[in-house]
């Protein structure tokens, strides 16, 4: 979030700096809010407090009116300012926007990974359908036992660690139930579906979701892998943490399966190596395998290919697309590259200065873009198969994130500005069942249609 921490000039109209007194006043008022929010994050809460229901059961994630603020010394940076979107099950949703538009902060909010106390989810709801272990009264997960043909528990002879049968006092062999294992040899437990409101969840409860239900692939594979542990060590950790009862041997078996899944040729060797021994593309593959190790329902890919070369990028995108169908998961893909979005996403969300300005299916956004910013963005990108002499350029810059105006943020750069634009910030207007746009140009049209 380096874009939020840039030195802010022009905090006040005529001055380039704030006085010490002003900064102290801002810090004091910030502290009041952040302390309360931090306390809320650390509280002990019963599960009922953050259980909700989804608006549409086909979705896996619903974000509604999310506000994520950064409380800085220069003022409140509204990095995400009223964002709502859905991720339907089994689909890829692409979030696109320029740097500083809040796309990464949205993903960080979903994972509750914001750097506190400055970064806080101020209000809003993030509803996530989790598919977690069913737990008994003591909070222990309930195992799935292997059954025979009659539906009764399969009993096998109990053996000690040397493989010898265990005998009871009378010399008879002891029988025990056997826990079921999945294709990767990981122990299975009974599962149930629950819907959590992540914005209200305490940090401790988040551990159940992070890396297990929602996994994240970061931009820089080198900085997000730990340089002092082997790949195997870091991969095993996921299994050992999230699948209770698994042994080190189980974890290793699962890790190697995961490395195989992402197309690494010699998984045994990579398992033993350190991150610096791998190339950029390999590291990103390892990151993806680590994300998959928790068997997640939702993968958040935050600029997964920005640090990679074009040919390696093609490999990674192919892999992600292939994996999505294989694990039946959903992907929230965050990128600034329209080409990647067009290729990968089913639904597209376009963000600008902390707000969503347009959302719809990929073909709607790319063939019938409506917001002037979306149109400009597409025309300003040179493409491989078009011949243009000059590129369309959007004049000016993104507005300062502190002191956002109350009119449309894009007004100063827009070429279709009308009188209406000098009024309030435009509401989201629905132009088709799946296509929404926030622009005054389309307010009137909808009224006529009704």
């Amino acid at each position, binding site marked *: 979030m380096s874009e939020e921490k840039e030195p802010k000039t022009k905090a006040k109209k005529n001055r380039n700096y704030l006085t010490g007194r002003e900064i102290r006043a801002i810090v004091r008022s910030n502290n009041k809010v952040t302390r309360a929010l931090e306390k809320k994050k650390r509280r002990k809460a019963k599960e009922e407090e953050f259980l909700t229901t989804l608006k549409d059961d086909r979705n896996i994630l619903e974000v509604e009116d999310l506000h994520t603020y950064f409380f800085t010394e220069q003022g409140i940076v509204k990095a995400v300012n009223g964002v709502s979107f859905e991720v339907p099950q089994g689909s890829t949703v692409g979030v696109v926007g320029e740097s500083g538009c809040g796309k990464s902060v949205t993903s960080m909010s979903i994972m509750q990974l914001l750097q506190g106390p400055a970064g806080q989810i101020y209000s809003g709801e993030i509803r996530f359908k989790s598919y977690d272990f069913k737990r008994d009264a003591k909070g222990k997960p309930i195992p799935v036992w292997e059954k025979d043909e009659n539906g009764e528990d399969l009993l096998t002879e109990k053996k000690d660690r040397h493989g010898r049968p265990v005998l009871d006092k009378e010399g008879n062999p002891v029988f025990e139930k056997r826990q079921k294992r999945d294709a990767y040899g990981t122990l299975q437990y009974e599962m149930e579906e629950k819907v959590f409101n992540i914005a209200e969840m305490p940090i401790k409860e988040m551990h159940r979701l992070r890396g297990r239900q929602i996994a994240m692939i970061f931009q820089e594979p080198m900085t997000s892998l730990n340089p002092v542990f082997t790949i195997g060590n870091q991969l095993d950790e996921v299994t050992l943490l999230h699948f209770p009862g698994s042994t080190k041997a189980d974890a290793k078996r699962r890790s190697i399966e995961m490395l195989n899944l992402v197309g690494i040729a010699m998984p045994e060797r990579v398992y033993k190596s350190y991150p610096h021994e791998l190339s950029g593309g390999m590291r990103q593959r390892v990151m993806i395998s680590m994300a998959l190790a928790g068997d997640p329902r939702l993968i958040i890919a935050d600029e997964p290919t920005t640090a990679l070369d074009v040919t390696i990028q*093609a*490999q990674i995108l192919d892999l992600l697309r292939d994996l999505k169908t294989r694990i039946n998961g959903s992907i929230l893909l965050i990128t600034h590259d329209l080409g990647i979005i067009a290729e990968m996403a089913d639904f597209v969300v376009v963000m600008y200065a902390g707000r969503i300005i347009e959302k719809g299916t990929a073909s709607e956004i*790319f063939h019938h873009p409506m917001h002037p910013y979306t149109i400009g963005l597409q025309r300003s990108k040179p493409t491989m198969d078009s011949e243009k002499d000059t*590129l369309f350029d959007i004049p000016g810059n993104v507005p300062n994130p502190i002191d956002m105006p109350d009119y449309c943020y894009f007004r100063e750069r827009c070429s279709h500005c009308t009188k209406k634009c000098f009024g309030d910030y435009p509401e989201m207007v629905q132009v088709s069942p799946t296509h929404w746009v926030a622009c005054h140009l389309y307010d009137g049209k909808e009224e006529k249609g009704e």
Partner: protein
Amino acid sequence: MNNSYLYVVTGGQVVAAGILVAVVALLVIAGCVLFFLIKGRKADGAKTDGAKGDDVALFDDELEARHERERREKAALKDRDLPPDEEALLEVRHLKMYFPLKKTIGGKVSLALRAVDDVSFKLKRGETLGIVGESGCGKTTMGRAILKLYQPTGGQVFFEGKDIAGYKPKEMRPLRTKMQIIFQDPYSSLPPRSTVGGILSEPVKVHKVVPKAETKDYVMKIMEQCGLRDYYYERYPHEFSGGQRQRICIARALSVKPALVVCDEPVSALDVSIQAQIINLLKQLQEELGLTYLFISHDLSVVKHISDKIGVMYLGSMVEFGDKKAIFSHPMHPYTQALFSAVPNPNPDVKMDRIVLKGDIPSPADPPKGCKFNTRCPHAMEICKHITPNYKEYEPGHFVACHCYPQED
């Protein structure tokens, strides 16, 4: 206990023992030196690790390597005395830029990183040459070696008909006004402690581009040309956004009236909408001032938009070079084909039949033998693993280095 024995030896014995120790020490030192020398020589020649004990293979490898070296030296020598092309502003012949990684005790380079390995091209006045390739393929190093920010290991660089490869820094000084560079990251390439006016007028003063009294007016004119407002003169770089800073960098490069500008990924650090502004500015300035650009970028669509000629680099070598139209309409080298097919298309309905290359780019310190692309090439043949293909002109102005095409002259 046993030490007492040492005290009862006679003088003659002491002398004998001393000589013995000295001889043994000398032998050990000589052994060490010999060992290191042999080791160094081995590493110097062809890689022989895999072929230990297999004398025939060892011989073949060395012979091949020697033939290869001789062939390339011959080619370089043949071109050496050719007069420079008069039409070309910049002509590069067999440019080599090696960075030493390991040295033997004798100071000989035993292992070198071949960042740029035998690159040749011509660039006419007023044209734009786009250099594309993956990271680590040597495109930036080549740009810097041409500007003599690095001292090239070998080859010739003709700038306006003079070979500047051997020039000393002092001799380069007057030429610096004619060749300038724009760097990738506008955040780290501007001095934070001087104002925009200071940054822009320093080169003007140093090179005495205009009389001292006119400096400010001149700088203002340049700023206006680059889309910077006049009141920016007193401001500091940190007050500007990335796009504005890149405009300052462009203004600084143009302030000495250069003929050649090396643009080293000037738009990679910028957002899409700002990228378009900078690209348009560069194009407009080229028309107004008749500049020649060497445009280095990994973004193919940007390079396609701005360039007249395109050079594709892989692991330090130019694999294909030619007119933009020729290269984009029928790329000849398999790497170029794969590179072009890998670019995502911003149209959700177009399903591209993509050539996905296997594996990663090999290390330039230990490039594969023969054609450097043979480890990832979908059309690799047996010959590709042993012999480097010739860099040959197949159509007028369209050079390719690949065994898929006839190699004989």
